[in-house]
């Protein structure tokens, strides 16, 4: 089980960061250890991380502020939080407001960490594929694709978008050519971020 996107492990305790990164490595997940939030944000320029495992209490920038900075730069990164000061309020915040996959108490439960990171990587990969599809299409083509996967026929689509049926057909052909897909089923899978 290998994933292309690596995992970033962030904890101000360098030993723990390195240990968690090695633990993930032993489980077939490529991981890099970091001790400062800025290092991770700087590394984003060269690497697209699939998942970030982050401590919540860190020196100058706490885990939640870091999560917002990270999401602003790359919305397709999955987040797993870990903490030595667990509170119910934190747990709810971590999962609801900051889109965390899981919230782990230290000392860390190994199987739960592996499961959370694996799930995070899969989620991130889907998000990236959706983004990749969206990137090659024009704005109008994205609208047409959106309606197509929701089951609209060309005839139904035309009045909704305010264009002629003929123009819809042109967009449709262009989408199929650009995504190199074959039929509706593949288009639907693509729009959900699944592999074809």
């Amino acid at each position, binding site marked *: 089980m290998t994933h292309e996107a690596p995992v970033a492990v962030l904890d101000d305790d360098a030993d*723990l960061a390195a240990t968690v990164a*090695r633990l993930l490595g032993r489980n077939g997940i490529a991981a890099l250890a970091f001790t400062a939030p800025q290092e991770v944000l700087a590394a984003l320029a060269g690497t697209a991380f699939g998942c970030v495992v982050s401590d919540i209490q860190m020196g100058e920038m706490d885990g939640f502020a870091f999560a917002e900075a990270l999401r602003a730069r790359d919305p397709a990164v999955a987040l797993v939080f870990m903490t030595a000061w667990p509170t119910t309020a934190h747990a709810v915040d971590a999962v609801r407001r900051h889109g965390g996959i899981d919230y782990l*108490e*230290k*000392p*860390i439960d190994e199987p739960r960490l592996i499961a959370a990171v694996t799930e995070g990587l899969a989620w991130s990969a889907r998000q990236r594929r959706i983004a990749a599809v969206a990137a090659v299409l024009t704005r109008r083509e994205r609208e047409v694709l959106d309606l197509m996967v929701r089951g609209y026929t060309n005839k139904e689509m035309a009045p909704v978008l305010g264009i002629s049926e003929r123009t819809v057909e042109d967009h449709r052909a262009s989408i199929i050519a650009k995504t190199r897909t074959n039929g509706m089923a593949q288009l639907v899978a693509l729009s959900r971020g699944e592999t074809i």
Partner: protein
Amino acid sequence: MIARHAASVFRTAPLRGLALRREDAVLLALYALGFALLHWAARPWGGAGFFSLWYPAAGLRFAVLWGRGARLTPWLVLAELATDWTVGVFSLGDPNVAQAITGAMRPGLTCGFAIALVRHLAKGRGDALALPPMMLGLAAVTAPALNALMVVPFEAWLPVEAGRYRSGVDIAISLTGLAVGDLLGILVLAPLLLWLAALARGAAPLRLRAVFSGSHLRPLLEDVLVMALCLLLTIALWRAGLGAQPAPGLLAGAWIGLRHGRTAAWFAICAQVCVFLPYSAGALGDAQRLELHLGLAAVVLVTWLAGSFSDAQKASRMLLDKRNRLLFQAERLKTLRAMSVAVIHEISQPLSTLAIEAAHLKSVTAHLDADTAASAALVDRKARALSDLVRRLRRFGGRDVDEPSPVPVAMLVQTACQIVAPEARAAGGRLDCAPVAADLAVQAQEIELTQALVNLLRNALAASPGQVVRLAALPRAEDVRIEVSNPAPSSPDAASGGMGVGLAIARTIVEAHGGTLTRHDEPGLVRFTISLPLLTGAFA
């Protein structure tokens, strides 16, 4: 339907409070007898315009109404009327029978009203005046004053027999005589009767040995000396022809009362009364007797109020001390929590690393020589045990702090059982929570106290895995005892880690609530008992 039923209950509740109970009927029969005797005994101190300047029957009346509550007033008045009629104070054929009856009813009614009034005014007040000793003193003064003041309104509507009061001076003398007689009777007799009643109930322990011990001897000698000097001074002034001067007696009474409280004050009052009453019962003119008793009443009044005030001060100081102790315990609890949270945090950080690496080491050394593999396995096991301990410790320290409020014990027990029951099931054990009487309540911070119970239950479950842990709550005198028991572990060191901290936190919480946490083992049984003061409706 239910609402109407509830409404009718509320409407009849005050009437039900007035209903005559069986023990009250016995008391009233005894009262009627005592009243008649004391009424008769008061005659030597009589005079024109007043019945007696020393009226112990008023003391008996006051003691009964104070001890049993003003609700008994109507029945007590009836008993007095029946006594008066039986001994011939008035007869039904008498043309002035209406006046006689209202006159006989007035003292009982005003006494009941005065007691109810003082109790009502003291309700909700936090200062020394509202403390029980001071309340009794105030009521003892209010009752005779009110009795005398109400004579005029009670008799204003009646056709007064001609020439009963010839002038305003006569009225003043009559009312003063009445008030003085009642006041002396109440302050001499009521404290003694109330103390005897408390003794009979078992509420006031008899400590004769303590009275004669060294610590009580010095104050006793001091009081006797002061009293003797002042009595000598009074007699000297009398002999010098200056009349019965109350000043020396006032000085002695105030000194003794303020220094040593109500008990000393009562003995001082008795000493004064014993010296003066036999003398004033002799051949004295009304004016002289009234003058003497007025002075005596002033002395008795000041002595009793001084004693009451001293006791009230002492009670309020004790209340303050208790509050300070609770505050100190709460502060300690806060520090203990903050420390344990900090320690848990500091430990869990390096422990995370240690546990992961130990697990790794164990898996990669499994195929190496037996000695290396065993070492690695041991390190891994210890790291995991330590991780479990940290997780358990985290659960012991609750975080939320709430305001103290009346909490039913049944609710505490139920909540604690609900929290721990799933853990007990998961560990293969069982929790047996006995039903708790619904009327048991304590003044508590609910979350804190629940935490203390949960800690004890968790300790018990950890100490005897797979067995039944029992939780029960029973009232014992003025406390409630909440007991957590489990079968004694077969080996003494089977207990798992972290139990000491859970117990320490539980103990600190319980002590912050003014209670105790003790261990009473029986053969084959470990039992921890939380003892907490029960919340009762009555303040006194």
